[in-house]
């Protein structure tokens, strides 16, 4: 039965997170934007303690085996939306499993999930990260050059290469005993078929954070380069069953794609939270200036500001449902590659349209650093870039609807 009612459990979680957003994120948003590379420990410690108190280790679904319909990804999308409503940059500093864990969840064995994810339940806040991108391989992930070679004597994988733009890489490797998931190739001539995910734990010799980027927005989140130099990890740190090692098919690449099916709607949810924050603030600021929005009127009778605001609401609301549908499909085990990428395309567009328009509408106030609108405009842009750019996600959608393989539409 078609139902748009938010599950009660999720409503409860959102109420709690709203308080966190109001009290622990918004008041420090500006500070962590202006002091890039400072770490919001208060927020991090609070979130860690809260997660432990609630018996969860991370926000990621999959670690609760409770009865009833599965709503883990729906809950996660709501939480991310609300946290990102608080601050899209600080949200990325949330301890516990994020993108790295998503890869572990999507491609790891049960034993691996336990081994790698248990650390998030520990005393201190712990982080993970996912390393796909390289200087010569962004959108075209099949071009990665980081290699993994099996040392048959020690049964270890030896990793070599450099990863860039790793979100939370510093927190995962330096600020906590976390781990990173490194995508490397076991056969550089095999392209996609050679790609495999490896877990590299903090403290592993030969793995080093070498650079921290300075960015347009989401400055509270660290984005780093990581060099792997004869970095040795145990054989079992290759994610998936042992056959993936010899499997000639594109299992590894498919693993990456399965991860994206789960993470793209979550990144889209981040965009939605930021867009909602922007629209709400814009409406408040307009209301203070005595501008009300007259819903229900034909467009011909609306002012240009009213038209803009109404269009923003339509964009926001409809995009949010695409996200929720994609995660609902995820929870219900329905293939969602199309919906997942559609939600990312839409949310990426919408958050940029809304934040850009909001700054424009508020004129000098929008441009001023006294308000958060200009920050949110800068924060928004990342949503159209990572987890597949807007173009890449359009490609995914197009291939799905046209029934094309990547060789037929590149």
């Amino acid at each position: 039965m078609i139902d748009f009612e938010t599950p009660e459990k999720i409503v409860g979680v959102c109420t709690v997170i709203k308080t966190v957003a109001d009290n622990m994120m918004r008041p420090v948003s500006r500070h962590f934007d202006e002091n890039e590379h400072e770490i919001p420990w208060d927020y991090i410690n609070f979130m860690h303690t809260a997660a432990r108190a609630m018996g969860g280790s991370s926000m990621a679904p999959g670690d609760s085996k409770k009865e009833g319909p599965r709503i883990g990804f729906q809950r996660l999308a709501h939480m991310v939306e609300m946290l990102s409503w608080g601050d899209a940059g600080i949200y990325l500093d949330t301890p516990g499993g994020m993108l790295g864990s998503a890869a572990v969840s999507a491609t790891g064995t049960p034993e691996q999930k336990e081994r790698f994810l248990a650390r998030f339940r520990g005393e201190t806040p712990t982080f993970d990260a996912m390393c796909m991108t390289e200087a010569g391989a962004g959108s075209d992930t099949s071009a990665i050059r980081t290699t993994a070679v099996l040392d048959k004597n020690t049964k270890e994988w030896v990793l070599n290469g450099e990863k860039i733009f790793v979100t939370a890489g510093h927190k995962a490797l330096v600020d906590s005993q976390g781990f990173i998931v490194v995508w490397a190739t076991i056969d550089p001539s095999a392209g996609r078929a050679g790609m495999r995910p490896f877990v590299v734990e903090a403290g592993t010799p030969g793995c080093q954070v070498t650079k921290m980027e300075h960015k347009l927005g989401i400055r509270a989140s660290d984005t780093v380069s990581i060099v792997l130099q004869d970095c040795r990890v145990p054989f079992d740190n290759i994610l998936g069953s042992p056959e993936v090692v010899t499997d000639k098919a594109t299992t590894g690449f498919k693993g990456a794609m399965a991860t994206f099916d789960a993470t793209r709607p979550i990144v889209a949810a981040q965009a939605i939270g930021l867009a909602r924050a922007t629209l709400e603030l814009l409406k408040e600021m307009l209301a203070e200036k005595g501008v009300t929005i007259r819903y229900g009127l034909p467009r011909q009778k609306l002012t240009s500001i009213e038209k803009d605001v109404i269009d923003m609401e339509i964009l926001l609301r409809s995009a949010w449902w695409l996200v929720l549908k994609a995660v609902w499909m995820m929870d219900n085990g329905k293939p969602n590659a199309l919906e997942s990428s559609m939600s990312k395309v839409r949310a990426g567009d919408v958050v940029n349209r809304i934040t850009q328009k909001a700054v424009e509408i508020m004129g000098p106030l929008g441009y001023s650093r006294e308000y958060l609108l200009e920050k949110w405009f800068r924060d928004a842009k990342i949503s159209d870039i990572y987890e597949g750019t807007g173009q890449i996600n359009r490609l995914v959608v197009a291939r799905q609807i046209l029934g094309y393989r990547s060789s037929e539409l590149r």
Partner: protein
Amino acid sequence: MYSFEPTDEQKMLIDAVSRYAASDLRPAAHDADENKELPPKLISKGWELGVLQASIPEAYGGFGDRSAVTGVLAAEEMAHGDLAGALAVGTPGLFALPILLSGSEEQKSQYLPPVIAADWKAYTAALIEPAFDFDPNDLKTVAKAEGGDYILNGEKTFAPFAANAEAMIVYAKLDGATKGFIVPKGAAGLKVGEEREKFMGLNAIPFFKVTLEGVKIPKTNLLAGDFAPVLDASRVAIAAMAIGVTKAAFEYSRDYAKERDVFGVKVAQKQAIAFMLAEMVTEIEAIRMLVWETAWMIDKGHAEASKQAYLAATGAIDMAMMVTDRAVQILGGHGYIREHPVEMWMREGRGFATFTGLAMV
């Protein structure tokens, strides 16, 4: 608990409607548009599917309870076949549903059975007015109380099948609010235009101007309830039909692009085209969710349903124009030629900004 899956019962209805839409409406659409006429048999066949009847309680001759969700699902499928056909089949609903939603018990018992428990007959409504700033909540047609009667004065356009209508709902402003009035055939001062109106699209439907010059009707013909639920029901229905039309346009242009060769590849293999298609389907899906949510809110009696219906209808306007325009573009010059349906869909696509009141669920 979120769910985006219709019930089994709804799926059965959608199935039946989509079969009719695909094998009856769509094949007839081109000729109906050219000849400016829908075969009456085609309309009765659609009527017999019982979409409207299923939303009218048994007590009034129907066999179910109204569900806006079921309504939008069916409306989308119908319009996916052909918009003009979908509107024609549903026209008696323009008379029946406002009575169901805002009429009295007596009005329901008196007026609904003859419409519902019979063959398709022309019952209609007149809402739209010939003004650029037409606003359903601020009508220029007015009603004035006079003794035991109301006197209606004003001018309407876009009244489907009005020439043969047994009766129609005329909307007018009464004490500052929009109200529906049941106006019987042949009421003194009621003038239906001699000639059919000429529009850019929907050629297959006979639309008429309706003029009201001191039309006197008894007070018992006033639909005393709120107009808002009636307007919501129309906005969401029109938006759902926009989804159906754009889905048709999207599918047609997608299939064409996979066949057409350019520069040694299929035109769909060009990113400029593939990205257009990706954006079209994303846009349709997004607005579709908004339409479904609106219908769900209507069924729940949600306080924000009216605002949401407005947002969905407004979103559908842009969606319909964007998608149908691109469908023509993807076919290139061939899209401009009337042998392909995309130009018709584009003419219809532009109309969704105007069609308020032409469908109800």
